[in-house]
Every structure is written in C-alpha cells, then in structure tokens.
C-alpha cells in the first residue's frame, strides 16, 4: 500500500474531497485551522466552493443551504465554535440534511484553552440544539481511522439523511502518521427526490424544512427521525475490544486516550494486573452491546477520559449496574500519562475495588 505522512486535520480534509465533498464553510479556530486552509486551496481546483464565513453560526447555515440542494458539504470547528453551531445542527437534523461536521476538541469551558481535550463528549453526543434529535458521532483514534471514517461518515450522512459528526481532539488533528487513501470508495446516492435544484417546471417544489405546526405532524416527524437513529444503532455501531480475555478490570476509552490506555495495559501486565479495553468508535449510538458479554473474569470497569467524567455516564448506562464503574481523567488540555493511569489502577486493585 502507498503510504504518505500526513497531519490528521489535512488527512481528514483530503479524505473529504476524495469522498466527493464539494463545499466547505468554516470560521477560524485552533486547533482545526489546517482543515479550512487545505480546503481553501483544494476545493477551487475541483470547481468546489470554500467560504470563510463570518461566524460558526453562519458557516453551519451555509452547510444547511448547500446540503439541502444535494451537494456533499462539510464544516469543521472546535469547542466554542461547535457550541455556536448547535442551532444549525438542530435544523440540519430536523430538515434531514446530509452533511459532515468535524469537531476538534480543546479544553473548556468558556474560551478554555487550545490544548487537546475530550470535554466536549456531551456537546457532541447530546448536542446543545433544541428538540428531539440525535446526531451520529464517530471518534477515531488514529489518522488512518479518521480517513476511513470520513468516507463512511459522508455515506452514512447520505444514506440516513442526517448530519454526522466526527469528534477528535487537537492531538489527532495535529499529529502526523503514515496513512493510505487506497481501497476507499464512496457510494452513489440518488438525491433527486428531495434536494432543491430548481423544479425546471417539471416537478412539484422541493422544500427543505423543519417546521411542523401541528403537534401530531411534528410527533410523526420526530418518530421518523427516531426510527432512523434506531436503524443506525442496529447497523452502524462500532467499537474495538482489546485484551479482554482474562481481564479483571476493563478500561473504556476513546480517541487518543485509548492509545495511552493501551500503553498502560502493557505496563500493568508487567505488574501482573490484567486490564482490557473497550474502545467505542461510535460514541453515538454508544456501543452498548460491547458490555453485555464481557468475560467472567471482569470485576469492574473504569472510564478513562480527558475530561472530568462525561462518557462515564454512558458506560454506567451501558453496563446497567452489573459492574462498579470507576473513573480516571485529566482535563483542561492535560494529557494523562500511561504511568499515572497505571498508578491509579494499581491503587484500585490494592483497595480491592
């Protein structure tokens, strides 16, 4: 396979273009600036369009415009910017517009910091927009996986007519790894039944809309959105299992943290402590199934995050009280070291938890 060394943000942008993305709308914010920079250079070459919007609010609404007329479109931002996009994401979900949103997390709240963090797990999986909607969220832990899921995300967006979000952190966005763009293909989708392209006087108008004034109509619409998400839950949930065989304790970690945890697992082995890992790849829907058939050896779970405890709530829900669920996290842009994770786990084991 032909491999090239690429920065995470640029690799995602290139994968998006290869997946057929024709429009990008965004607003500058660290640590995702490589994505719009790449798009501003590459999209005009393929007759696409790049706009540096006046705000994240405007950018996400430009996505609503372009996506509604059936063109593959994306935006990217980081924590405070994703906060501003929530209104638009709710409208996109409501009007069933396919699009791809990349969230490159940094520390918060408020202006927070610019170092990598996972404190926007709730922001991504719960969302801050109004109404009964859910947005699929994927969280790759390597640049190759980010590329692969960029293709998949665009396909999922079209297949289910939904926004799809990729949640990474500044580390994955900024680091470089050897990657390949081979063996990727995108599906063809027929958007002629709903996209706004102009009626040409030959069909009834297409309307991109999220307004349903009759409560029963809106309920039916929300049930349809819900059914769609249930289908995504059945067909698209993804996770990785690592070292579960004989594990006494199972860590749950996603994104870059999962790679640090893998290091800790090796170090713990040397100390005779068997730890496994469940790595959710789709954060929404959360891989609940991963927790239903754990080996008998498992005594407890621990969610390890670069936050003060967000995914841990999903771990508790998924494991239904079958296991005690502990938590370890650093926040604010502080990256946990494998050693401090090891120390924490050792202490837990000693205390017999």
């Amino acid at each position, binding site marked *: 396979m032909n491999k090239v060394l690429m920065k995470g943000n640029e690799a995602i942008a290139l994968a998006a273009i290869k997946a057929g993305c024709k429009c990008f709308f965004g607003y500058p914010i660290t640590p995702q600036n490589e994505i719009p920079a790449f798009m501003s250079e590459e999209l005009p070459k393929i007759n696409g369009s790049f706009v540096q*919007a006046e705000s994240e609010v405007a950018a996400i609404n430009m996505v609503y415009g372009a996506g509604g007329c059936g063109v593959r479109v994306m935006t990217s931002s980081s924590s405070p910017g994703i906060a501003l996009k929530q209104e638009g994401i709710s409208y996109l979900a409501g009007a069933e517009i396919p699009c791809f949103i990349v969230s490159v997390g940094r520390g918060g709240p408020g202006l927070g910091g610019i170092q990598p963090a996972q404190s926007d797990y709730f922001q991504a999986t719960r969302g801050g927009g109004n109404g009964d909607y859910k947005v699929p969220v994927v969280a790759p832990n390597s640049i190759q996986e980010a590329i692969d899921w960029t293709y998949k995300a665009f396909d999922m967006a079209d297949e289910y007519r939904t926004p799809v979000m990729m949640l990474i952190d500044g580390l994955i966005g900024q680091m470089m790894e050897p990657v390949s763009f081979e063996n990727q293909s995108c599906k063809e989708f027929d958007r002629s039944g709903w996209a*706004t392209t*102009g009626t*040409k006087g030959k069909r009834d108008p297409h309307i*991109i809309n999220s307004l349903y004034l009759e409560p029963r109509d809106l309920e039916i619409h929300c049930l349809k959105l819900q059914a769609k998400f249930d289908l995504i839950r059945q067909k698209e949930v993804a996770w990785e299992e690592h070292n579960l065989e004989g594990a006494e304790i199972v860590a749950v970690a996603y994104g870059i943290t999962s790679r640090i945890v893998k290091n800790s697992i090796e170090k713990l082995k040397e100390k005779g402590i068997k730890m496994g890992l469940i790595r959710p790849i789709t954060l929404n829907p959360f891989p609940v199934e991963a927790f239903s058939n754990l080996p008998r050896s498992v005594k407890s779970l621990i969610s390890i995050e670069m936050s003060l405890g967000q995914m841990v709530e999903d771990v508790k829900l998924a494991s239904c009280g079958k296991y005690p669920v502990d938590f370890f996290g650093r926040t604010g842009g502080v990256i946990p070291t494998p050693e401090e994770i090891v120390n924490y786990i050792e202490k837990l084991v000693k205390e017999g938890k």
Partner: protein
Amino acid sequence: MSTVVFKKTEGLTDKTTHYCPGCTHGIIHRLVAESLEELGVLGDTIGVAPVGCAVLAYKYFKCDMHQAAHGRAPAVATGIKRARPENVVFTYQGDGDLASIGAAEIVHAAARGEKITTIFINNAIYGMTGGQMAPTTLIGQKAATAPLGRDPKLAGYPIKVSEMLATLEGAKFVERVSVDTPINVRKAKKAIKRAFEIQLSGEGFGIVEVLSTCPTNWGMSAIEALEWLRKNMMPKYPLGNLRDDNKGDN
C-alpha cells in the same frame, strides 16, 4: 372573444396565505413571483423563507424553497448559491430577522457580493411574535416591548438598513420601495425585477427594502396603516435607489 387581461402568476401556489387582512406581505409575494415568472427563471429558483410572519412562504412560492433559522437566510442562500451557482437564489426576510438577529449574516453576504437577491420587508415591528420593538421601530412608536414608545435613550435608534448596506462594495443593487399605492407597487416590481437581473448578470448582491404594513400589531385598519406608513415611515426611510452601479449599461 374574451382576452385574458390579468391572470394569477405561475410563481405562486394555490395555497391560501395566512397573512392578516390588509397586510402587504401578500402583495410583495406576488411581485417576487411575477418577476421570477417574467424573467423565465421560476424553474431555476431556490428561495429561502425566514422566521417571522413569512415563515410559511415556502408554501406560497412555486419554486424550490428552504426554511431557514431566524436571521440566517443570507447564510443559507450563500450555501445554496455556492453549491449551485447556476440557480437563482433569493431570501425573503422581515426586519427582526434581517436587521436584528441576522444583522451579521446580511452584512457579510452583501460584503462578499454573494450573487443572491434579498427581499427585505420593513414593517417597523416584530409581526409574528406580537408587535415587539424591532431595530426599525421608529422613535416614539409604540410596541409591545416599548409601551411608551421607542425611547432612544433606552433603545437607541432605528437602523436604516439600505443606507448601511449601500456602503458595501459587494452590494451592487440597493433600493427602497413601498407598496402603498398602485404607482409604488409598479415601482417596487421594477426594482425587484432589476435586483434579480443583477443576480442573473453575475454582478453581485442585490437587496430591495420594501416598506410594509402590519395593521394587526400597529393596531390600525388597513387604510390607516397605509396612511401611517406614508406619514411616519417614508420620511425616515425615504424611497429610492441607493445603488445600481451599472445602470447605464441597459
């Protein structure tokens, strides 16, 4: 033999509008629809409806439509036009939508010279939510949230949107019109058509500000409302063209 002297425009659907009696939103819809029909672009048009009394405009215009979040229509239209430059794209927005919550979006769409057309309905009030003060509410004008009349010491001054946008280079056509009399309706139609022509020629952004009545929230009859518009709005918001760079060309 009978000849057809007037027929309903192909640009509007048969749906009954929800506008109050005497509201001029309806006339403005017709002018937009007629212009699109006469220019032969109805089948290529994608319109953007606002949040406001015209929120249901997507049911009335017989072309593809997007319903946009409050104030975001110019951003939505930007996305549409960038994705489909061959289509004709317009936004239809009230003064709360455009001049308050969507002030950034309209200014930047105009500044970028987006090749879209904006129909801006200035009725000096928030119609849909029940007559609250708008950025265009006149000094002394009463509103649900300015019960003693707009006091500039507390609520500042009305925004003259057309004058403001006309300062931007990307705005190639800016005109303020009214639909209070048949003559003014004809002038309004001409301006709207011209604004679409500017888009079709690829020159840049065009906006037509239409002074409009809200008899319901102004608390007047339809006739009184038209008189009030002439007496109070026109002096503050003078009619006329503020920008038409290449007028000499045709």
